[in-house]
């Protein structure tokens, strides 16, 4: 089990998330895809911190912050999504088109 294992995993997770952001139309699912990308970030941070950083701590600290903010982001984004859903009855981003993208 080496650093490269984690890096490749993180790269794969990031790419899957990126694909999701670009391919999905449902706002909730776009949000989830972004969370996958953030997880890829965390895998990177923790792995780099563990394998490379002599202090070993900074990677984890960074990851904690990312987790906290990401969780808050899910909550806030969902509140907005719900509001849109109530006003418009849809959460598909390409049907939300009062203004062109």
């Amino acid at each position: 089990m080496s650093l490269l294992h984690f890096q490749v995993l993180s790269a794969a997770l990031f790419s899957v998330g990126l694909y999701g952001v670009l391919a999905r139309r449902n706002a909730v699912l776009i949000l989830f895809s972004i969370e996958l990308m953030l997880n890829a970030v965390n895998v990177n941070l923790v792995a780099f911190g563990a394998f490379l950083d002599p202090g070993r701590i900074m990677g984890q600290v960074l990851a904690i912050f990312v987790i906290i903010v990401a969780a808050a982001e899910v909550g806030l984004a969902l509140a907005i999504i719900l509001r849109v859903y109530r006003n418009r009855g849809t959460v598909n981003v390409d049907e939300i088109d009062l203004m062109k993208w």
Partner: protein
Amino acid sequence: MSPTLAVFYLLAAITLGSAVAVVSSRNVVYAVLALLLSLVAVAGLFILLLAEFLALVQVLIYAGAIIIVLLFALMLTRVEEFARVRDNPQRPIALVVAGAVLGILIAAFLRFSPATQELKHVGVTALGSELFTRWAIPFEVASLVLLVALIGAIVIARAGGRE
């Protein structure tokens, strides 16, 4: 293959498999569950990296938040409507872009092979004291971020007004 490596592959498979499920599922509820699974598997990976505290944070906060999201979604909307999922016509483009990014990242990682050190536990105390001294300022700012998210979520999602 060492046992840890076997565990790594298992967790990696779960992480990626459920991630793919998240981005391809036709049902939002399944997607939430897959995301949850993926998050938990990543927490397992953190344990492999001897970052147990972080694994705990990941499960409690992150996965917790996602569960709340799930409940939220189920409670406030009718499932069958929320679950009506279709994808963009631009899926092939998305696939190409994501594939290219993956290729670039892996190519870059293969050419980056620094000397690594032994994995070692990081005490929760060390992490905590670091968090509250050296990183006190971002920590406080992060609490404001949470406050803003909370206020915002309430103001925006709260029923009422001219509905």
